[in-house]
């Protein structure tokens, strides 16, 4: 789709906004609707749009599959790691109360970290799956 000027210009305008919205959903998920899962999918959609309009190869140069393969387990490790950190700090697994001085504040921090882990895994898995599907046809 390299010759579609309208598509390219509109995509260039849209992609930063989609990414910004994804980050908003990620970090605002504890105040409004949303969370790591939705944010990851929205963020992946931005990359997938880029790949569709500007070609798979340029998208692969921007988001390298090798980095994605590291990010996929990293998200799960962040999630599980938060749980282990709770045990080390003297709490129960995935009981975030011990993460900060104040129990409620600790819960808040834990939820944010855990959602970050979910978001990282979901978005990198979605992008990787799309790359593999799209890359196989040629």
């Amino acid at each position, binding site marked *: 789709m390299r010759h579609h000027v309208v598509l390219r210009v509109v995509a260039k305008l849209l992609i930063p906004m989609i990414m910004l919205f994804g980050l908003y*959903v990620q970090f605002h*998920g*504890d*105040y*409004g*609707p*949303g*969370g790591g*899962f*939705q944010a990851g*999918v*929205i963020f*992946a*959609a931005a990359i*997938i749009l880029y790949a*569709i309009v500007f070609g798979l190869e340029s998208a692969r140069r921007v988001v390298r599959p090798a980095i994605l*393969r590291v990010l*996929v*387990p990293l*998200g*799960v490790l962040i*999630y*599980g790691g938060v*749980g282990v950190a709770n045990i080390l700090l003297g709490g129960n697994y*995935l009981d*975030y109360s011990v993460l900060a001085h104040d*129990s*409620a*504040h600790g*819960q*808040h921090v*834990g*939820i944010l970290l*855990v*959602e970050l*882990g*979910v978001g990282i*895994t*979901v978005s*990198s*898995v*979605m992008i*990787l*799956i*799309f*790359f*593999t*599907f*799209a*890359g*196989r*046809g040629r």
Partner: protein
Amino acid sequence: MVVTAVAVVRQRDLFAAVMLTGIFSLLSAGLFVDWDAVDVAFTEASVGAGIVTVLMLGTLALTAPTEKKAVHSRILPLVVVTLTGAALIYGTLDMPLYGDPEAPINRHVVPRYLNESLEETNVPNVVAAVLASYRGYDTLGETTVIFTAGIGVLLLLGGRRRNKGGGRK
């Protein structure tokens, strides 16, 4: 939604069927908004109508664009589907009315979630508090499922093709 569902089944052109599934997802997202389940609607719109449609189109690009003619008889699948559907509808007869305050789901842990999650977790969005904190194990499991699914797809499709000359391409 019923119209789109029937259209998906009747459609032989798979491209149109994928598009109709996307429309179906978007309609159900609207339905969830109407039921005040904004988080679920959000997920349905982004995953069901967005990513899944794109992935289906990607699959279509790898396979044939039209459905093959059915080889086997259609009677047995029809009977199975009808029986399952009837059993499911029979199961809903016992369920409490939607939004009934006396329903078991609204009396067990939900009041605690609704009344105390703000003090206990400092997070105003109850859905996020329940998902990530009270039901943290479930969400960890879901994340692991996605992780496993991603690895599975990568192993099946993305492996480096070592035998480029012979065998499968």
